């Protein structure tokens, strides 16, 4: 695949500038051009994935209440920064270091000697793309824990997931660990399980250890809606996530080749199908096409297609997206009912649909390839499906245990939840010093009062003397 694209560029050089090329003896081989193209493409894709941080920030801010909006933006800002440094220092080495074992990588700490590089990509480009993914896994959690988590506790969590939990999961498959060594290797193209389900399961443990927001459940135990404070933010954030996904999925090809277009198409179709089905389901259920739920449906379609984006047909992508749209609505209502309060639907979108999408590879993969076997629905048997189930169960169990322990340790040391008064007042002022939408304007100098035409003494005369 690479030679086709590289060859076309090299032919152009020969036809249009033969003398210049021979006179200076510039030897630009097709491989060099392809290598540079790969690096440029994946670097741009990495930036698109980092742009998803803005999408997450807006979705989460929009779907929660105004009184904690600065807090949720701050969490999104800091899980990226803490995650970037933690993944640079140790996460990247644990995920991809060649000197480790099947469960834990080692080598290339702080991007030093032996740091991993993939194929034609340089080490920095490889790292940047991977750190963008690590930050995605980390930031999924903030929405599920919104409006009631102590900031410093969330900050500690985001260091640990990026330094340890996410890298170990990645090592199991992308890092060449045991999931990549199964007789039929586990396949997750861009991270439905390793990125999204990891974030989603951590979000589930966080929400579980925290408990629901005050006022989320009535005295009868029935869930009460706590409406979003800014739907335009949530929808804009959803669009930004969609755009970022064109880096997430096609970029995971890790090369500028002829597969990236098809990946972008399956990504688009699944997103659209997810949004439409989620809208129809909630419309039939409540009588109104709920905007927030529809936005969740689009993201559910994206998360669902991420594992199989290169392996499934366009029709397969529509079916996967549509089913994810159905599943996400059922999951949101389910978690609501069992008193797990997830204000933005992160557990349902990323956890449940991430697991679903990963398993779908074993059902919808159209034919055998170097990386996956034909799925059950196309007559390929259950080998790939079995590996997908093993991977999903193993990753979910590992993240549930480690993230659960992490939140329990944080709860019993620095504390996880803010005080009741702080939660009711909103986290912005007490955690960060100022409200998200600014204090009321207070004049510093009072204007001079006009002279009283009736000659009465000013009311304030003598005050303060």
């Amino acid at each position, binding site marked *: 695949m690479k030679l086709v694209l590289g060859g076309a560029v090299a032919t152009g050089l020969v036809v249009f500038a033969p003398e210049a090329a021979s006179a200076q003896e510039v030897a630009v081989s097709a491989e060099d051009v392809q290598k540079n193209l790969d690096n440029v493409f994946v670097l741009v894709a990495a930036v698109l994935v980092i742009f998803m941080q803005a999408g997450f920030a807006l979705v989460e801010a929009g779907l929660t209440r105004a009184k904690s909006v600065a807090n949720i933006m701050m969490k999104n800002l800091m899980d990226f920064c803490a995650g970037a440094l933690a993944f640079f220092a140790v996460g990247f080495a644990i995920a991809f270091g060649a000197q480790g074992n099947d469960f834990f990588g080692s080598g290339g700490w702080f991007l030093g000697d032996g740091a991993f590089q993939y194929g034609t990509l340089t080490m920095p480009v490889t790292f940047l793309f991977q750190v963008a993914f690590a930050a995605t896994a980390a930031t999924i959690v903030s929405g599920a824990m919104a409006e009631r988590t102590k900031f410093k506790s969330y900050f500690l969590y985001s260091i640990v997931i990026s330094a340890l939990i996410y890298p170990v999961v990645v090592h199991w498959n992308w890092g060449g660990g045991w999931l990549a060594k199964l007789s039929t290797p586990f396949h997750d193209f861009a991270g439905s399980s390793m990125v999204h389900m990891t974030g989603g399961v951590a979000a589930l443990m966080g929400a579980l250890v925290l408990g629901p927001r005050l006022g989320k459940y009535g005295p009868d135990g029935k869930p009460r*809606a706590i409406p*979003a404070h800014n739907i335009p933010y949530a929808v804009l954030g959803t669009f930004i996530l969609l755009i970022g996904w064109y880096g997430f999925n096609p970029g995971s090809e890790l090369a500028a080749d002829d597969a990236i277009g098809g990946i972008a198409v399956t990504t688009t179709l699944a997103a659209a199908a997810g949004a439409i089905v989620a809208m129809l389901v909630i419309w039939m259920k409540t009588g*109104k096409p709920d905007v927030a739920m529809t936005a969740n449906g689009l993201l559910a379609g994206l998360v669902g297609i991420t594992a199989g984006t290169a392996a499934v047909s366009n029709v397969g992508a529509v079916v996967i997206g549509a089913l994810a749209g159905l599943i996400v609505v059922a999951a949101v209502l389910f978690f609501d009912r069992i008193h797990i309060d997830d204000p933005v*639907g992160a557990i349902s979108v990323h956890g449940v649909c991430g697991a679903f999408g990963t398993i779908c590879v074993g059902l919808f993969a159209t034919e055998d390839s170097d990386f996956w076997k034909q799925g059950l629905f196309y007559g390929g048997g259950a080998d790939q499906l079995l590996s997908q189930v093993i991977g999903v169960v193993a990753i979910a169990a590992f993240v549930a245990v480690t993230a659960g322990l992490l939140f329990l340790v944080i709860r019993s040391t620095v504390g996880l939840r803010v005080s009741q008064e702080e939660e009711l007042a909103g986290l912005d002022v007490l955690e960060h010093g100022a409200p998200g939408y600014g204090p009321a304007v207070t004049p510093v100098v009072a204007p001079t009062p006009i002279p009283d*035409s*009736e000659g009465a003494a000013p009311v304030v005369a003598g005050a303060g003397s």
Partner: protein
Amino acid sequence: MIKLVTAVIKPHMLEPVKEGLRGVGVKGITVTEVKGFGRQGGHTETYRGAEYAVDLIPKLKVEVICSVDDADLVMRTIRKCAHTGKIGDGKVWIVDVERLMRVRTGEMGEEAT
């Protein structure tokens, strides 16, 4: 004798009320965004599949200061312009104003209306 005519109306009825009051010669009004419930007692909506109560419904409060001779006309005009016939059209009432002063000039009473 000065009267204060106060009305609580549906927000989208402000334009007809404003034009109607201008039409009968009212020189100034004060409008405030308020919330409340009346006999309808609010209603429920759904968000992400869960119900929530909207018991305080947004309304506008319109205040007009006028002479006693104009008060009934102002009241009838507001009623005529704010009327939809559906539940939640609001209320209008008249109270006495004990004293009235224009801040800029210090004029009192009728002159200040």
